[in-house]
C-alpha cells in the first residue's frame, strides 16, 4: 500500500539522528513554552521561526510541530500545580487537576495527563495516516451555519457545569457571553462597551481574565488557610490507584474521540474540545458530584482531548492547507517561509517531507511521555515549598504572563479585577465554569451568525436548509430536553423539601 510505504520511509527518516534531536528539542522547548506564562504556543512558535532559517526545512518543521503539541502539555503543569492555566486550553484541567494537587495527588494528575496526552496524540496521528484526506473534506462542510449550531449545542453544556443552582449557572453563562461582547463588533466594525479605552477594542483578553479568576483568586483564598496539608507522598503513591486507572480508561478513550473529531473542524480552537470532553465525562459518570473535587477522569478526559485535538488539527493543514487555529497559522507561516505551501499539492510533490513530519508526530508524542513522566515527581515537589514562596511565585508568574501577552499594563488590571471577582465567587460558591464557557463561546456565536446571514443575504432559512446544521440543531435541542428532564425532578424535590 502506498501510504504504508510512505509512512515507513517517513519513520526511517524521522528516526535519523538529526531529526530525532530536533524533535527532542522541540518537545523540551514546547513544554517550557507551555509552562511559561504569556508565551502561548502561537507566540512561542513565532519566536522560533527564525531558527528554521538556519535549519533544513524538514528538521525545522519537525521541531516546530513538536513545540506545538509540547506546549499543549506544558500548560497542564501550571494548571495542576498552581491553578493558573499556562495556556488557554488548559483552563479545564484546573477544575479537577488543582484539587488533586491540593489533596497531595498532584503527581498523579500530571502523570495521568501525560499518559492520556500520549494516547490521544498517538491515536489521532494514526487516524491522520489512515483517514486523513476523505475525512478532511467532510469536515469542510462545516460552514458558518454549522458553527453557529455547534456553539448552541456547546451552550447546552452549561447545564452540566452549574453545580448548586441551575439558575446561577445560567446567569453566569449569560454574564460570560455578555463580557465576550466587549470590543469591536463583527457587524459594523464599531467598538462596543469599550467606553473609550483603546485597550478594550479587542475585548477583555481571555488569558488575563482566566488568570485572575483562577490563579489570583486561588491565592487570595489560600491566605485563609495557608498551611494546607500537603501529604508528602512516595513515588509509588504518584501512580493512580487501580480504581482510578479503571475510570481513566473510559475517559481517555472518549477524550481521544472527542478531541480528534473536533480537531478536524477548522476554527474550533483547543478549549472547546476540552470542555466538551469534561462535560461528557461528568454526564456519563456514576459520581458526577466528585467532579470539581479532584476526580481523576476530570483531568484525564480534557488532557487527552487536548492532545488529540492538537494532532488532529494538523490534518486540515497538511491535507488542504487550511490552518485550524492561530497557532497552526504560525506553523503554516513557517512552511511558507521555507518555500513550501501546505496542501494537497505538497502531499503529492514532496511526500518525503510530509510523511517524515507526520512520522515525527509519533516520535514526538513518545518523547513527550518519556520526558515528562519522570519529571512529574519533581514538579509535584515544588508544591512543598513554604506557601509564601509558592504564592508570590505564582503572582510573579501572573504579572509577567498578563503583561507579556500584548505588552499592555491594562491586562494586569483586568487580571486583578477578575481576581477579586473570582475570590468573591468562590467564597459564596457561585460556579465559575459556566462564565468561562460563555466567554469562549460568545464571539463564536455572534460571528458565525453574522457570517451566515451575510452568506444568505439575510435569509434565516439557511440554518434549516443545510443538513448538517439541522442535525446539530436537533442534537442541541435533544440535549436541552434531556437536561431539563434530568434536572426537573431535582429542582422539584428541592422545592418540596424546602416547604
Amino acid at each position: 500500500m502506498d501510504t504504508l510505504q510512505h509512512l515507513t520511509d517517513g519513520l526511517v527518516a524521522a528516526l535519523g539522528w538529526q531529526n530525532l534531536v530536533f524533535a527532542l528539542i522541540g518537545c523540551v522547548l514546547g513544554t517550557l513554552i507551555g509552562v511559561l506564562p504569556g508565551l502561548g504556543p502561537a507566540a512561542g512558535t513565532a519566536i522560533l521561526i527564525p531558527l528554521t532559517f538556519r535549519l533544513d526545512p524538514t528538521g525545522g518543521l519537525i521541531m516546530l510541530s513538536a513545540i506545538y503539541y509540547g506546549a499543549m502539555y506544558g500548560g497542564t503543569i501550571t494548571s495542576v500545580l498552581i491553578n493558573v492555566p499556562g495556556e488557554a486550553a488548559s483552563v479545564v484541567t484546573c477544575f479537577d487537576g488543582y484539587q488533586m494537587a491540593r489533596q497531595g495527588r498532584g503527581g498523579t494528575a500530571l502523570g495521568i495527563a501525560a499518559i492520556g496526552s500520549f494516547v490521544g496524540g498517538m491515536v489521532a496521528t494514526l487516524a491522520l495516516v489512515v483517514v486523513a484526506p476523505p475525512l478532511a473534506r467532510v469536515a469542510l462542510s462545516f460552514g458558518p451555519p454549522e458553527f453557529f449550531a455547534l456553539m448552541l449545542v456547546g451552550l447546552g453544556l452549561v447545564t452540566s457545569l452549574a453545580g448548586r443552582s441551575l439558575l446561577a449557572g445560567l446567569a453566569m453563562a449569560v454574564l460570560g457571553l455578555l463580557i465576550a461582547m466587549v470590543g469591536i463588533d463583527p457587524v459594523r466594525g464599531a467598538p462596543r462597551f469599550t467606553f473609550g479605552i483603546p485597550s478594550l477594542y479587542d475585548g477583555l483578553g481571555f488569558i488575563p481574565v482566566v488568570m485572575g479568576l483562577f490563579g489570583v483568586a486561588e491565592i487570595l483564598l489560600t491566605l485563609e488557610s495557608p498551611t494546607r496539608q500537603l501529604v508528602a507522598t512516595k513515588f509509588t503513591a504518584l501512580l493512580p490507584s487501580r480504581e482510578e486507572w479503571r475510570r481513566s480508561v473510559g475517559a481517555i478513550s472518549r477524550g481521544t474521540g472527542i478531541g480528534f473529531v473536533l480537531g478536524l473542524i477548522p476554527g474550533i480552537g483547543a478549549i472547546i474540545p476540552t470542555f466538551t470532553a469534561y462535560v461528557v465525562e461528568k454526564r456519563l459518570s456514576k459520581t458526577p458530584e466528585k467532579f470539581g473535587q479532584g476526580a481523576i477522569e476530570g483531568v484525564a478526559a480534557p488532557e487527552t482531548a487536548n492532545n488529540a485535538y492538537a494532532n488532529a488539527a494538523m490534518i486540515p493543514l497538511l491535507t488542504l492547507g487550511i490552518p485550524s487555529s492561530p497557532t497552526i497559522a504560525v506553523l503554516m507561516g513557517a512552511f511558507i517561509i521555507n518555500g513550501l505551501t501546505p496542501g494537497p499539492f505538497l502531499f503529492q510533490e514532496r511526500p518525503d517531507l510530509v510523511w517524515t513530519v507526520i512520522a515525527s508526530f509519533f516520535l514526538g508524542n513518545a518523547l513527550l511521555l518519556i520526558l515528562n513522566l519522570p519529571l512529574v515527581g519533581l514538579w509535584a515537589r515544588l508544591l512543598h515549598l513554604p506557601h509564601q514562596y509558592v504564592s508570590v511565585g505564582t503572582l510573579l508568574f501572573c504579572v509577567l504572563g498578563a503583561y507579556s501577552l500584548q505588552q499592555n499594563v491594562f491586562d494586569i488590571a483586568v487580571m486583578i479585577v477578575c481576581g477579586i471577582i473570582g475570590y468573591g465567587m468562590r467564597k459564596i460558591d457561585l460556579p465559575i465554569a459556566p462564565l468561562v464557557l460563555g466567554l469562549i463561546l460568545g464571539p463564536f456565536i455572534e460571528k458565525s451568525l453574522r457570517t451566515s446571514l451575510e452568506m444568505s443575504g439575510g435569509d434565516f432559512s439557511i440554518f434549516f436548509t443545510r443538513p448538517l446544521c439541522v442535525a446539530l440543531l436537533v442534537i442541541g435541542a435533544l440535549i436541552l430536553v434531556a437536561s431539563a428532564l434530568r434536572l426537573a425532578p431535582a429542582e422539584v424535590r428541592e422545592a418540596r423539601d424546602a416547604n
Partner: protein
Amino acid sequence: MSRLVTATFAATLALAAALGGAGAQQSYPTRPIQLMVAFPAGGSTDIAARIVASIAEKELGQSVVVVNKGGAGGQIGWTELTRQRPDGYYIGFINLPATNTVILDPERKAIFTEKDFVPIINQVLDPGLIWVRADSPYKTVHDLIEAAKKAPNTIRTATTGILSDDHLAILMTEEAAPGALFRLVHLEGGAAQLKEIMAGNVDVAFDNVGSIATRVKSGEVRGLAVLDEVRSKFLPDVPTMKELGYPTVISSSTRGIAAPKGTPEPIVKRLREVLKKAMEHPDHVKKLEDAGIAIKIMEGEEYARYFADTHAKAKKYTEWARNRPMR
C-alpha cells in the same frame, strides 16, 4: 554684564544639548528595537517583518524584536504605535489602505490620524487578486461580472475584513461595472477565505497575490484577475483588470514601516538606510519571492506621497461603503 553671562550660559547649554543629542543619536541604537506588527503571528505582514528584522539587526548591532499586537483589524497595534515614545526604539508596520480606513471610518473611533505617523520606508506592495475555486463556473472576470449584473446581490463574495483593501476593491469593481452587485461576506483573513471557498460557502474571493499565489500556480485555485497596472511576476498568466477593460480597478495592500510622530530626523534617516539595505539584501529578496510576496521599496518623500494618495482614495470608497445598502 550678567545678561551676557546668562546668554553665554544658555548658548553653552544649548550647544551641549545639541551635541549630546546628536551624540545620543549617533550611538543609536543602544538597546533592542521593537518592530510592531499589527496582526497575529504567521500572517503575510508578520512573515515579511521577521525576515527583514533578522537581516536589519545585524547592521544595527542590536536585536530587532518583532512584537505582535493584533486585534481590531490592526487598530490596536497602530494606536499603540502612535502612543509610544518617539525615540526610535519602537517602530511598526502600517498597512495601507487598512490604516487609512481605520482613520476614516467614524464608527471605528480611532484616536489617531494620518498625521501621527512618520512613514519611513515601504517594504511590500501586494496587488489585489480575484480568485475562485478551480472548478468554479466563472472562468474569466467577464463571466463573474455578467453574473453579478444578471443576479445582483447573489454572488457571495468574500473579503478579509470590513473595510479591508479587498472590500474597497469590490466597490471599485461595482463602480467600474455599473449594475453589478456582489453579496459581501466579511471573513477574517485569507485562511478563512480559503476554507469557505473550498467548502463552497462563498463563490469568489478578493484577496491579495501574496496570500494565494502559490496555490494559483499549482492549480488548486483559479486566479481571475490581478488588480494592478502590470501583471504580477508570480502569476504571469493572470490578466490585469486594466487589460480586461476596467482600468480604474487598481487596489493593493502595502506594508511599510513607520515611526511615531516626533521621532528625530537623524534616527529616521538611519533607520531608513538600514532597512533599505536589509530589504535589498539577497536573502530578503529570495525569501520574500519564495513566499510570493512582491517587494516595492518606497522611501521618504515617495512613501509619504503614496500614503496621502491612498488616504484620499480610501476616503472616497469608505464613504461609499457606509452608504451602500449592504455593507
